[in-house]
């Protein structure tokens, strides 16, 4: 069992911070319900993944150092994103030469860093949540969470415990939605083709709600669903697990 009331630093992620704070507050609720003390360092900005994936290693290094400093001393660091957590866990150590203090700090931070849902299940041993949410839902596995952090069963397990949620699997739930960070604006036509296939698989399930764990993917999928006038609601997994039905779904006003 984890120590009593671990001190958790919430890495909000730049996208949630600016676009959808309700995901951050849902994460805080889930962490507090699980017995954590939550703090939010205000010097955090972005994990640096956009720079790293654009080949700009120097800026990625600077931003990584900032995050490493911001989250020093916490028992755990938790992000409501597999992509940003994956950046810290898998890629921060690659930014620094082995044997340096920076590298050691990156590895050490990586050991304390988790994506939200997998932190709840793996570290806090949460088996179910006490929440209600009416949804015939389908869950999309975001690539980084799935392949860098091995997250697949955990969100499904917790979602199944939400009163009112029924889950149905889409075909190819593990295939990329076409977001890919800057990819989706650099190659919008390819991205759209990938998205088109994804939306077909979503529609085929008959679900009224699409759930995933990364806001980038969610905005991508919601963006096209709403452009096409779809009634399918798009939600971050944290919002559903926290029972936040009051906040309008992604891309909608009410």
């Amino acid at each position, binding site marked *: 069992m984890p120590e009593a009331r671990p001190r958790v630093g919430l890495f909000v992620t730049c996208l949630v911070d600016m*676009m959808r704070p309700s995901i*951050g507050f849902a994460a805080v609720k889930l962490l507090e319900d699980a017995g954590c003390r939550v703090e939010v360092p205000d010097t955090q900005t972005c994990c640096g993944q956009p720079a790293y994936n654009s*080949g700009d290693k120097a*800026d990625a290094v600077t931003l990584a150092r900032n995050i490493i400093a911001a989250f020093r001393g916490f028992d755990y660091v938790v992000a409501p994103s597999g992509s940003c957590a994956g950046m810290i866990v898998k890629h921060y150590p690659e930014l620094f030469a082995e044997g340096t203090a920076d590298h050691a700090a990156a590895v050490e931070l990586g050991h304390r860093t988790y994506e939200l849902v997998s932190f709840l299940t793996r570290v806090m041993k949460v088996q179910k949540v006490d929440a209600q949410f009416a949804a015939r839902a389908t869950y999309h596995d975001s690539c980084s969470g799935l392949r860098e952090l091995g997250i697949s069963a955990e969100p499904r397990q917790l979602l199944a415990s939400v009163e009112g949620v029924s889950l149905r699997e889409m075909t190819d739930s593990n295939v990329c939605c076409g977001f*890919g960070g800057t990819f989706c604006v*650099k190659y919008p036509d390819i991205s759209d083709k990938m998205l088109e296939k994804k939306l077909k698989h979503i529609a085929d399930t008959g679900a009224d709600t699409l759930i995933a764990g990364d806001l980038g993917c969610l905005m991508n999928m919601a963006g096209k669903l709403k452009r096409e006038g779809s009634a399918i609601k798009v939600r971050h997994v944290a919002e559903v697990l926290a029972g936040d039905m009051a906040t309008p779904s992604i891309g909608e006003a009410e």
Partner: protein
Amino acid sequence: MEASAATFPANVIKALADSQLQYAMTETGPRFQTKRSVARDALPEFDALRDQSRDIKNHVLDHLDIYLERYEAKVQASGGHVHWAATAEEARAQILEICRKANARVVTKGKSMISEEIDLNHHLEANGIQPVETDLGEYLIQIRNERPSHIIAPAVHLTRDQVEADFRKAHTHLDPNRDLTEIPALVEEARTVLRQKYFEADAGVTGANFLIAETGTSIIVTNEGNGDLTQTLPKVHIVIASIEKIVPTLEDAATILRVLARSATGQDFSNYTTLSTGPRRDGDPDGPEEYHVVILDNGRSNVLGTEFQDMLRCIRCGACLNHCPVYNAVGGHAYGWVYPGPIGSVVTPALVGIENAKHLPNASTFCGRCEEVCPMRIPLPKMLRHWREKEFERHLQPASIRWGLRFWAFAAKRPKLYQFGTRIAARVLANMGHGKGRLRNVPLASGWTKYRDFPAPQGKTFQQMWKERAK
């Protein structure tokens, strides 16, 4: 055929608008994926074999000179000849010379990506020699004057209707009333034409899946048996292979063979695994009088010892293509050169120069499926990212992307400025949503809004609200 990797965005538009291509691609990816998955699940030691295969090739790449020399000595001892080609041009010249000495007029060919890489067919044709591809897929693209669109399934972009039309155009002997609506009829037609060519050929060119250092053997795997006829019937057999195809022993090849077909087609083993060592010996029932091996470098040795070395482990199974959502959206020709898909986006810049292939490393979402399925555990996303680093160093990315990134990084490195900026952006964008929760157009974000609305932010940043809550 010129490389067109530089015009990738235009190639993509064309590919997405090509309804035949899109139709052909719909089934292919999922079919290959399912077959691989079934084959993998049936072999408990599959992942352990991947580790062993990776280790074998890593060892070879660290001692490449030793194994290549050992291989050469063994080929010579078995009566064959080894030709070293530093460039595609040298390889073409060496093969032409061998064909000329043999007075060859017709040359049959087994499937070989290296032959595509050096554009051998056009060179032979320009010098009065008729090359005939004997792999069905390769034959189809030869009569269409196209490049392969897939490493192991070169004509995967074609539909049955297109094949029938191509046959009726190329095979002028065909009775217009002959029924070619079923695939077996098409295969029969190809077989009839090709069988004659096997007997006419004066030389046969094959690729190699492996070159064995301990024995001087070359190995090919095929499903049609065409490679066997290509290398045993003519009086001259020419193997064309690149330097990294070498493995130390037959045992090593056997290990890698166990992951090759499973990763490629989902077969436990390909229909034919054919070993050839030197020319026909006294007492052999068949085989060529001359045996030549042309070993191509073409830029590969420059990769040794760099952050890109792992790409040389590739055994060209095509699994990364089959599982790539980008490849499955646009097909192989959009990549603009010989090797498509994730491995192509890694290899092409190394062989033609990053300045001529700068889009390719960017045409990936880093979804990671390629690395997940690669039998040789090549870290493809990492290699692609290394290419992006090279591009960043050399300012090869579009100015808009570079300046956008600089602007963003400048702010993100200054938390106070960043929070100030995000507060304003969140409020402005939320207001622009006009209470609809989304925007149809966003300044400087046409790439996003071309196909999607932009979900509006909620209005305040999390940091802002968190501080308000604490008060």
